[in-house]
């Protein structure tokens, strides 16, 4: 579901520049499935789908498949148009080391924005 980031982020020099100091592994949850995404200095190194056995991630954003699908439409409905909107309206959970997300917030907002169909 998120494999496209390997191409879209790595083709976007500006977005990579936002994450030039970001090296981490974060996770996205879709229903019961997990995806781990490795970032190295703003480049996406891998997008792997679980199951994983107690594998660490800095933070996790989890939502239902329907919520992610709505998030990815060109004009999502209110409450589905941003990760913080999803969290605020009870449509997603954001857990773990939130400080990594916040430290590189412009980068992660831009990366997830690339999932949106234009």
């Amino acid at each position, binding site marked *: 579901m998120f494999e496209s980031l390997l191409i879209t982020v790595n083709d976007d020099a500006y977005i990579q520049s936002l994450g030039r100091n970001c090296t981490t592994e974060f996770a996205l949850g879709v229903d019961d499935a997990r995806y781990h995404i490795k970032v190295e200095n703003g480049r996406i190194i891998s997008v792997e789908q679980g199951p994983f056995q107690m594998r660490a991630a800095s933070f996790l954003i989890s939502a239902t498949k329907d919520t992610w699908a709505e998030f990815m439409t060109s004009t*999502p409905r*209110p*409450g589905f*148009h*941003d990760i*913080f909107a999803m969290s605020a309206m009870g449509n997603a959970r954001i857990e773990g080391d939130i400080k990594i997300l*916040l430290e590189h917030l412009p980068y992660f*907002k831009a990366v997830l924005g690339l999932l949106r169909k234009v």
Partner: protein
Amino acid sequence: MAEIEPILGRYLKLEIAGEPYRIYFEEAGEGIPLLCLHTAGAHASQFRHLMCDPDVSRQFRVIAFDLPWHGKSNPPVGWERKEYKLTADFYVDTILAFADALELEKPIVMGCSMGGRVAVRLACLHGERFRAAIGLEGSNRPSPWWDNSWLETDFFARGDFCEALVSGLAAPTSPPEFRNETLWHYRQSGTNIFKGDMHFFRTDSEFEADAESAAPCPLILMTGEYDYSCTPDDGRRTAAAIPGAEAIEMKGMGHFPMSENPAAFREYLLPVLKRFLN
């Protein structure tokens, strides 16, 4: 021929809570004063579209000032050893002092976000001074969508962080140019000024409306459907608790109606303003 906008910007010497300040304000139009209050960490330029709208400026004198520490208004002398924290009392004192200094006669006060929050307080506590109060994305208490512990981090010192924090509050349906201009204001803010405004917004802005809170002036709460900081339900809840208050939901709108989608906003605002023409 150069395209020059009708907005005039000037500076005003203003005493607030016993201290002298140099305050920047902009205005355009003639008629009923429409005093506009910007959002946290931003400045008066958010209202530039209203000032350039002839359907507004023909009958209203649109005025917006930068709060102390914001935009082109100075912080107080001695700022270098002060931590900026906006309080409800200072915010109200500033607005009333500004209206007095300009001798505004029964202005309509219209604020957005924290300006909308203070509009509720102004209507209930000082409503006799205003023709009406309009709260854009304003309610009577915070509906936190992030943890207050975030304020203990250093991230709020970064404009790009403040911008990213609020970016989802602008609606995806707003024109990208104006959406992004709105977000740009969050990069312009002085270091930790947005954070200082959060002191009011998050911990000192609650105004408990009760049966005796009847606003002495009309109070209209206009809220965008994409706003998750002040939801349309927050607007309706606040309006329901204050006799005479009214809530209006704005479709396809986010947290910054006047600057993120001026064309859509005027369709909601013009009929409201029209009510207050004599």
